[in-house]
C-alpha cells in the first residue's frame, strides 16, 4: 500500500462540481461550471458583480436546485439531496446578506446551530443550562468574538456583529467544507485583520471556498484562486499568477492594458 502517506490523503476530494448549470428563465447565471476542491484546500473565488458566485454557493448548498450537472460532497452524489442533508454531511455556509434569526438571542441562535448539526433539534424540552451543547455554543461565540453578546437579540446586533455570527454558525459541529460569501463586506478596516486571522486559524483539514472582493484578504488566506465571469469558471491557479493575469485585469479594470 504505497499511496497512503500524507501527500496522498491531501489529494482527497472534498467537493466535486461537474457541468454545474443554473438558469433563471433564459438567463444563465452559472454556466457549465467544473471545479474540484481538495480536502484542506483554501480557494478564493473572484469575479465582478453578477458573475454568479453567490448563485454557485446556493447550488452547492441546495438553496436552489440545479438546472444541470452534478455535485459530489465527500464523494457522495448530492445534487438531489435537500439542504439539511448536505449540511449534515459536513457542508456549511455564510450568507452574503446576513440571514439570521432576528427574534432569537445570540445564545439561542448558536445553540440552535449546534443542536441542528448534532441532530438534537427534535428535543421538545429545554436543555440543561450546563449541557455540552451550551458549552459548544459558548465556544462558537468565542471564535466569532461574540462572547459578550450572548444574551443580545440578533436583530439588535450591528452589521459587523451579524457577519461574525454568520461565521460562528458556519463553524458549528465538525465542518468539512465551509463556503464564506463575502465575509468582509461592510467590515471596517480595523475589523478586517481580525477576519483574516480567523480564516487563517481554521483547522488544516477544513476545505474552504471564499468569495471575496477584498483582494488582500483573498490572497492572504487562499492557496488557489478561481475567477468567475458571466457564470463561467474562467481560470484557476496560484494566487499571484491569477491576480496578475490579463483576464483578471480585464474583468476588474475593464480593459486590457
Amino acid at each position, binding site marked *: 500500500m504505497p499511496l497512503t502517506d500524507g501527500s496522498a490523503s491531501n489529494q482527497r476530494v472534498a467537493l466535486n462540481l461537474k457541468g454545474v448549470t443554473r438558469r433563471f428563465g433564459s438567463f444563465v447565471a452559472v454556466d457549465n461550471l467544473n471545479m474540484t476542491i481538495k480536502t484542506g484546500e483554501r480557494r478564493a473565488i473572484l469575479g465582478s458583480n453578477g458573475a454568479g458566485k453567490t448563485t454557485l454557493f446556493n447550488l452547492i*448548498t*441546495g*438553496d436552489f436546485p440545479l438546472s444541470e450537472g452534478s455535485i459530489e460532497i465527500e464523494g457522495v452524489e448530492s445534487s438531489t439531496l*435537500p*439542504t*439539511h442533508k448536505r*449540511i*449534515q454531511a459536513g457542508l456549511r*455556509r455564510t*450568507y452574503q446578506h446576513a*440571514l*439570521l*434569526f*432576528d*427574534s*432569537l438571542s445570540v445564545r*439561542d441562535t448558536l*445553540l*440552535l*446551530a449546534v*443542536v*441542528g*448539526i448534532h*441532530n*438534537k*433539534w*427534535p*428535543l*421538545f*424540552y*429545554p*436543555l440543561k443550562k450546563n449541557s455540552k451543547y451550551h458549552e459548544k455554543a459558548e465556544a462558537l461565540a468565542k471564535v466569532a468574538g461574540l462572547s459578550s453578546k450572548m444574551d443580545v437579540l440578533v436583530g439588535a446586533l450591528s452589521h459587523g456583529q451579524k457577519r461574525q455570527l454568520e461565521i460562528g*454558525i458556519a463553524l*458549528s*459541529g465538525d465542518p468539512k467544507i465551509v463556503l464564506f460569501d463575502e465575509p468582509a463586506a461592510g467590515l471596517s478596516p480595523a475589523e478586517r485583520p481580525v477576519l483574516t486571522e480567523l480564516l487563517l486559524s481554521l483547522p488544516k483539514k477544513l476545505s474552504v471556498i471564499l468569495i471575496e472582493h477584498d483582494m488582500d484578504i483573498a490572497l492572504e488566506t487562499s492557496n488557489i484562486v478561481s475567477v468567475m465571469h458571466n457564470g463561467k469558471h474562467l481560470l484557476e491557479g496560484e494566487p499571484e499568477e491569477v491576480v496578475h493575469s490579463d483576464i483578471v485585469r480585464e474583468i476588474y479594470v475593464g480593459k486590457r492594458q
Partner: protein
Amino acid sequence: MSRTLLLIVVILIILPAFISDFWLNQILTRSIILGIAALSLTFLTTYLGVVSFAQITLAGVAGYTIAYFSPNTTGLGIELPWLFAVALALLFSTLAGAFVGAIAKKSVGIYSIMITLAISMAFFYFTRQNYSIFNGWTGFSGITAPVAFGVSLEDSLVFYYATLLSATAAGYLVVKFTSSPLGLAVQGVKDAARRVRAIGIPTTPVIIAAYAFSGFIAGMSGVLNVWQQERISSFSVGLGPTIDLLIIAVIGGMRHPLGAFIGAITYVLIDTFVIDLFSRDRFNMIIGLVLLFIVMAAPQGILGSFLSAQKRIRKYDNNAIKRKIKNDCEI
C-alpha cells in the same frame, strides 16, 4: 414578568372567595377556557408567524373525543375511564394539529388563513352530516364531568381550580417548548426558514410539530369546554367560534402568547354585560367597534401595549437612575 404572573395566579386562587357563582362560572372559568384555546393560536402567530383558523377545529376534535368516551345522554359512544378519555382526546387533537400542519406547511400569510379555514369548514360540515360518530348537527349532550382523584369536577369551585391548573400548565408548556431546541427551530422558521435548513434542520417536521403542539393546547381547552358546557355539537366548531377566537387573539395581542387570556376576559365581559345593556343584536356591533379601536389605537393588543408602555417607563426609570448616579459622582 414572572413575578407579575405569580401575583396574578395568587389573585386567581383566592378570588373565588369574593365572587358569586355566576362570576365564577360564566366569567372566570369561561374566560380561562377560551384563553387556553386562544393561547394555542397566539403560540402559532407569535412563534411560527402564521394565523390558523383551525384552532377551534382542533379543540373540537378533543371535545368530540371526550364526549364520545364519556357518560352522556345521547346514547352514542363508549364509556372509558376519564383519564383514558382525556389522554385520547389530547392525542387526537395533537394528531389533528399535525395533520393541519402537514397540509399548511408551506403556507404563510393569507394562504395559511385560507387553508386552515378550508380545513375547519370541512370539519364543520362533516360533523353535521356524520351521525355514526358525531351525531349530526345535534351532537352530544348530557356529558358529565368526571370525579377525578376523589373530587367531582361537576362542582363549580373544583372545576374552576382544575381549569386554572390547566391554564397554568398550558402556559408552562408553551414557555418550556419555546426554549427547547424544537421550539427554537420553530422561531427560526418564522425568521428565516432557509437558514434553518442551512444549519442542518429540515423545516417540514418543525412546522408540523408546531401545529401538533398547538393542537395539544387547543385540545386542553376542548376537553374543559365540553365538561363545562356538558354538550358539543357542530355549532361548537362552526365559523362563529372560529372568528370569536381570532377576535380574542387580536384584542389580547399576538405578540405575547399570554395576551390570549387578557383577550378572553375582555371578550367574555363584553359578551356578558353588553348584552344586558343593549340587545343581543348589538353584540356584533360593539365587539366590532372594540376590535376597530384595538386595531387602530393598539395594534399590538392590550397586553402588547401594556408591555411596551412598561418598557418605556423602565427606560425612563433607568435614565433617571443613571442621571442621579452621574450627578452624585460629579458632586
